[in-house]
């Protein structure tokens, strides 16, 4: 699989033993192995984001996480595109990605790699890089795995609920279940996967807000995700196919509505990818790659108590792409194109809205001298009469134990490439309009431009001691931002006010990160620091970046006492942030418990610990995860839950051999 992926991407992938990726494809990449994920005690897929430097994450419920990164608009879209076993997958709903809506069970993940730079991968141009999830390889025969997990946040009233010391309930997490069955025979592999998760957002500041919108009692968020994925050899090539289905009973926080909305989402995706060698041509060894896919997305109200709330939404997206690759020694070329057709119907859309997005792309990589690698990728994207160009140039120089990299990107982006709430509002969609919030939009979203440069340095200082540092700058023009101005009336739980769409916002950002990792005997450790900040720009841009905590430092240590038992501890220190537009909801008591919202998101010191034990020749694994042991105020959003000390217990079983 790795070999196939490396060939597809026309690059070598080199993974060191201490979680660094040093390759032309992924300069400055960060890599987590299954052992890292297990030791860290990750309870959900989104937890792996905590392990990477350079992000900031935010959540309202404590469950669905949005990320901020050096490019784009903070917390409006994740800073990566998802590749699962080398194939593009998406959980995108109006530009938001929830990692936990992927079908793959946490225990089946062999590695997760974050590649931050722009460039081509898996038949597409990825502006902010990729998050690559590789699952465990199956051996011949049948294998099955399953996991069950319960979580508990501390701070419930317990028996005092019947006394004058009564206090509000806190969120309940789980039980969560996930599993997979894999069959592999003579090069053919079929894998069925499923996950079912549950969360009760019962935090004191959210409980009335949530109870006002849904008849569910207790209110819950329940995603079920299933997938069937297969790989079959066809002649000298191979075909990979996958089908993914999702059913989500959601309480989805939408800022344009100022609150959670009770929706039901059904999502069906099917995709196929074939690769076939085409013999030798003038350009070298040729190979053909083709992909086709279809995704259907339906959104409806689910047990709603909101008057006139009708989020009805149907979207069908059909994509096809073809790519020819040539390999001639140190030089490699790729040329291809993608076409995507999107059809939408929904509330307020008089007739079907649709657009077609076409992309032509090319890539050339070569090694001019020993240790030096260079890659240039270009893409031309068009929708209707609009055309934009994207360029990315990557230079990697490796000498002895050190690697330097420079990635420069210049990109024009059409609104159709990432259509969010503002884009569809322009088309007429009114599914998220609630009476309390006025959504004000004077102009439709326009194309934007972005320039970026990222310099990275990695060094092996001594055996088992790795240093990684990077600095990146982004210059953004023509952004479309949603700017809230909320207030809270006494006795109300949900904000009122306006969300104004600002066109043409612009600014510059700076990101820097440094981490030192060490391994000695049974010990693994890391210290890291990252900076993420705006350094100039329009008022709307700077307001959006006020939300982002600038500083984050982290230290963690893992000791593997034997091959089956590990202890892990981590300390994370993060600065606070201010959310402009929420000042007038701060300090007003929220019913029923009189708690208050706060536009100031506090800085925090988090201490986490995890214990992991394998049993029965690694067929069973037990893990205990303790989050926020100091019970510090862990909150990420003005209207969000405060996440207290919480404990997760998890049991995993694996039958048959997986590598």
């Amino acid at each position, binding site marked *: 699989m790795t070999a196939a992926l490396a060939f597809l991407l026309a690059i070598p992938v080199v993974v060191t033993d201490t979680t660094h990726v040093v390759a032309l494809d992924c300069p400055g990449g960060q890599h987590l192995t299954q052992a890292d994920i297990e030791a860290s005690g990750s309870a959900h897929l989104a937890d792996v984001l905590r392990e990477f430097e350079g992000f900031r994450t935010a959540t309202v419920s404590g469950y669905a996480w949005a990320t901020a990164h050096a490019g784009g608009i903070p917390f409006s879209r994740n800073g990566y595109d998802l590749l699962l076993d080398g194939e593009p997958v998406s959980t995108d709903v109006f530009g938001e990605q929830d990692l936990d809506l992927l079908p793959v069970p946490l225990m089946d993940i062999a590695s997760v790699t974050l590649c931050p730079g722009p460039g081509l991968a898996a038949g597409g141009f990825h502006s902010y890089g990729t998050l690559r999830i590789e699952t465990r390889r199956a051996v011949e025969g049948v294998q099955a795995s399953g996991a069950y997990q319960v979580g508990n946040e501390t*701070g*419930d*009233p*317990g028996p005092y609920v019947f006394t004058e*010391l009564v206090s509000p309930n806190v969120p309940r997490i789980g039980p969560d279940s996930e599993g997979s069955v894999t069959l592999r025979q003579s090069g053919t592999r079929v894998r069925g996967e499923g996950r079912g998760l549950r969360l009760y957002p019962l935090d004191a500041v959210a409980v009335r807000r949530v109870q006002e919108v849904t008849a569910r009692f207790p209110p819950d968020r329940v995603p079920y995700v299933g997938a069937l994925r297969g790989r079959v050899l066809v002649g000298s090539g191979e075909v990979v196919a996958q089908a993914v289905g999702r059913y989500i009973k959601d309480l989805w926080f939408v800022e344009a509505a100022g609150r959670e909305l009770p929706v039901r989402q059904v999502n069906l995706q099917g995709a196929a990818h074939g690769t076939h060698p085409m013999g030798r041509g003038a350009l070298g060894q040729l190979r053909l790659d083709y992909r086709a896919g279809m995704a259907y997305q339906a959104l409806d109200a689910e047990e709603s108590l909101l008057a006139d709330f009708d989020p009805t939404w149907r979207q069908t997206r059909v994509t096809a792409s073809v790519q020819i690759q040539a390999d001639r020694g140190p030089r490699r070329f790729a040329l291809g194109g993608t076409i995507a057709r999107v059809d939408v119907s929904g509330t307020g859309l008089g007739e079907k809205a649709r657009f077609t997005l076409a992309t032509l792309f090319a890539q050339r990589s070569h090694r001019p001298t020993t240790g030096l690698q260079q890659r240039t990728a270009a893409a031309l994207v068009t929708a209707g009469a609009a055309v934009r160009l994207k360029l990315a140039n990557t230079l990697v120089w490796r000498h002895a134990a050190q690697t330097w990299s420079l990635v420069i990107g210049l990109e024009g982006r059409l609104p159709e490439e990432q259509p969010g709430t503002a884009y569809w509002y322009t088309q007429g969609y009114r599914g998220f309009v609630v009476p309390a919030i006025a959504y004000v939009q004077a102009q439709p979203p326009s194309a934007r431009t972005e320039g970026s440069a990222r310099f990275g340095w990695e060094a092996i200082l001594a055996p088992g001691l790795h240093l990684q540092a990077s600095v990146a700058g982004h210059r953004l023009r023509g952004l479309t931002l949603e700017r809230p101005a909320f207030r809270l009336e006494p006795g109300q739980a949900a904000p009122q006010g306006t969300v104004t769409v600002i066109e043409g916002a612009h600014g510059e950002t700076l990101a820097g990160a440094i981490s030192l990792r060490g391994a000695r005997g049974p010990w693994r450790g890391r210290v890291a620091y990252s900076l993420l900040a705006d350094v100039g720009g329009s008022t709307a841009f700077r307001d959006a970046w006020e939300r982002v905590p600038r500083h984050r430092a982290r230290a963690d240590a893992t000791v593997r006492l034997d091959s089956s038992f590990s202890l892990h501890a981590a300390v994370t220190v993060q600065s606070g942030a201010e959310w402009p537009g929420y000042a007038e909801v701060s300090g007003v008591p929220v019913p029923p418990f009189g708690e208050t919202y706060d536009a100031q998101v506090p800085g925090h010191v988090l201490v986490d610990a995890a214990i992991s034990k394998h049993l029965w020749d690694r067929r069973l694994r037990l893990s205990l995860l303790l989050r926020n042991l100091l019970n510090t105020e862990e909150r990420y959003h003005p209207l969000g839950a405060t996440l207290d000390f919480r404990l997760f217990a998890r049991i995993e079983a694996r039958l048959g051999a997986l590598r």
Partner: protein
Amino acid sequence: MPRPWLVLAVWLLCAPVGAQTDTGHQAFDTIRLAGGVSLPLGDSYDGRWAVRPGAWAHASTEFVRGRAHLAVQVYDNDNGTETTPDFLAVQGEVGWGYPVHLPAGISATGGGHLGAIRFRFRENEQFSGFVQDETEVTAGLFARAEAPVGGRLGGFAEVHWIRVFTAEPISLTRVQVGLSLTFDSPAWARRFLR
């Protein structure tokens, strides 16, 4: 109320002095099953409920230079009024302790535990609209003394302190006494656990 953290810290500092540990054993060599009664020490709910005697059971084995255990205890909590319901508390835990062997076959073990407690409220028409049970996270410390009685049979006494992470934290201290039975782990169980 004793200061459990302080007591354990002193014990751990003193434990290595002149003492012999379980290092002669490999992980999961033996299994010890124990059970008995537990008695409350002090007031746990500011006088709102009276903690009743209860029952407990646990299983332990050698693990990482000490002994790991799984345990469960059950006890009633009576309020004696009509305005607040009585409830049954069931607490389960996983823990680890460092044993010190003393003369005459006596051993003393101190350690910590993590677990969950379930409060099951008595059904009552007055509280029909309320939740019937709640589950909370617990953590705590223990100090245990064991002495041989004869053969594989041993006597067992433990002071067991639990912190329940409710919004208004609850501290429960109990004395547990009972009998234990120690035997070699069956080969299949040793293989499974290792």
